[in-house]
């Protein structure tokens, strides 16, 4: 059975992704900061799908631990999906460097640090799949969330470069732009229903897209065009908007 490594396994989106892949008979490695909290999820995957699920301590912002973490996995995963991220508070991050650094490290630096390790391993084996969950917020910086947006922009660019580099090694890299997703991270925000996906929808879309070796996945198709329009607005006008 193939194995999927989920980095940041405790989020609502990660729960849905784990279930989808387990239902397709993937063994699942759940990695996160709080392994005790991952145990019910591990049991759930075993009871529901009769697959092998394991939990592993992983801290995205503890960069030094990443190569040791990867080397310590019981099996080299056939596929790695990077789900962790931190929305944070834009206003707080403007004044408080700690908040800004957490946003950058959780969404960009940490992802680069661990995926560098995974990429080297996959390049050497000449196989493997890497999936990164980025965000439409990274497509253009807006005053309401440019801290998160710029970190995700960095991550999107990283994934696109990595895809380009690893193509010749037979390693596939897929970027996912979910748009709004109904999760605990966004539960305090009033989201437009038409543009908001359920975590289960995101998980199914990712599974289908990765089987077809898609490069960039927009979960709700509207987002590709919304972001296209937002990107086309001339900067002179854009800077006056309150987006």
């Amino acid at each position, binding site marked *: 059975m193939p194995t999927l490594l989920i980095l940041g396994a405790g989020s609502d989106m990660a729960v849905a992704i784990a279930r989808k892949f387990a239902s397709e008979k993937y063994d699942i490695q759940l990695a996160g900061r709080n392994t005790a*909290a991952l145990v019910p999820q591990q049991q*759930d995957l075993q009871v*529901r799908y009769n697959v092998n699920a394991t939990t592993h301590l992983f801290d995205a912002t503890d960069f030094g631990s990443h190569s040791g973490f990867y080397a310590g996995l019981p099996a080299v995963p056939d596929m790695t999906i990077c789900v962790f991220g931190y929305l944070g508070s834009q206003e707080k991050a403007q004044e408080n460097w700690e908040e800004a650094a957490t946003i950058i490290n959780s969404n960009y630096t940490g992802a680069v640090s661990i995926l560098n390790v995974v990429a080297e391993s996959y390049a050497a084996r000449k196989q493997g799949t890497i999936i990164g969950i980025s965000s439409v917020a990274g497509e253009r910086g807006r005053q309401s969330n440019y801290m998160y947006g710029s970190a995700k922009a960095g991550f999107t660019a990283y994934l696109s470069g990595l895809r380009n580099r690893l193509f010749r090694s037979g390693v596939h890299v897929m970027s996912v732009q979910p748009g709004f997703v109904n999760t*605990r991270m966004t*539960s305090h925000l009033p989201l437009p229903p038409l543009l908001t996906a359920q975590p289960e929808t995101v998980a199914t879309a990712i599974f289908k897209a990765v089987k077809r070796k898609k490069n960039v996945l927009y979960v709700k198709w509207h987002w590709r065009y919304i972001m296209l329009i937002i990107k086309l607005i001339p900067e002179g006008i854009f800077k006056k908007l309150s987006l």
Partner: protein
Amino acid sequence: MQKRLANWGNYPAVASDEHAFTREDELRNYVVTNTHMIARGNGRCYGDASLGKHSISMLKYDKMLSFDTAAGVMDVQAGVTLDQILDIIVPQGWFLPVTPGTKYITVGGAVASDVHGKNHHVDGAFSGHIIDMDVLTASGETVCCSATRHEDLFWATCGGMGLTGVITRVKFGLKKISTAYIRQTQLKAKNLEEVIRLFDEYKHYTYSMAWIDCLQKGDSFGRSILIVGEHATPEELNAKQKAAPLTLPAKRKLTVPFNLPSFVLNTFTVKAFNWLYYGKNYKKVMHKVIPYEPFFYPLDAILHWNRGYGKAGFVQYQFVVSLEQKDGLIAILRKISEKGWGSFLAVLKVFGKQDSLISFPMEGYTLALDFPIRKGLFEFLDELDEIVLQYGGRLYLSKDARMKQEIFWNSYPNAGRFAEIVKQYNHDARFESLQSERLLLTK
């Protein structure tokens, strides 16, 4: 975030602040720092028991912790719904010990309502199958309770409508099956007397219930169809079913996409019933082997069927009176029939013995039917309540959105003791629903 919440009857609808969690420590933090909160599962009850100012959504607390396939024991977080459990256990030869008429409810909701099924006269209510469970009380403490451990908490939680705290984990026993099919027998009864006689004659069947035509008068008063069933054995299946006895054929779901005018559902059920009752090939007694889904969950095949009652919503009225008070059943059914405001069909069932603290079931006849909301309805239902009370009966709290407090206190013999235990685990009435406020259970 403030949301508009309503349960299955679409009445009442309230603005509520919904909070979801996936870890117990998140829930604990929330519980110890908030008041006026009540746990809510999948919103399939008909009343206001799970509606409050702050709503704790259980749906993301949905992990299955263990399934002992040899002993038939399931241990789950309380937000898991019954349909998810059936998908796992049926192919492995197990079934729910007790199930209500919809599988889209959470396990926590099943306990809080102490749900009953068509097998109540044989297997009792859901509470009888619980091995143990965890309840997170107002102090933030998680208490593991069972029929022999913290019994007061256990019995006040079964049927206690979430007022003792948040049910977080439930371990319960399953029923062994050898096929996913039911051997069903349908019997026509020309009136209420006959269906009551048939219930008695067929009481050795594990599952039984009857559809009653509420509009008939005179000799056909209480005209009905009794449906009884047993889990089918492999020998009773046809060749195609035998090939995979524990797997159901896949089928599509229908949905009601928007609210329909309220006469639509009644027109549909009138036709369906008459087709069954008068259909050319329909004999007095009919046998067939059918998948478990249409037998237990006929309405689940139509998603959002509640929209068939229109935008104003509906309430369901369910009462029970003891076997000796058959006259009460007749009096109430007659009053409903004369008024003509209820749904055309009602469900009749004979409960077996049950002696718990606050659960609804007791030995006797229980009747359930829907009433679309209209002017004057609540006054009419108040009149029915008086008759129920007069015959020593009571109403099902899971279906209640309007009962007056004195009806509750006078009809549930252990109400006082229940309220005392609630006070003990739910200090300062932190857990509070519209229903508990109305019935003065958390004052």
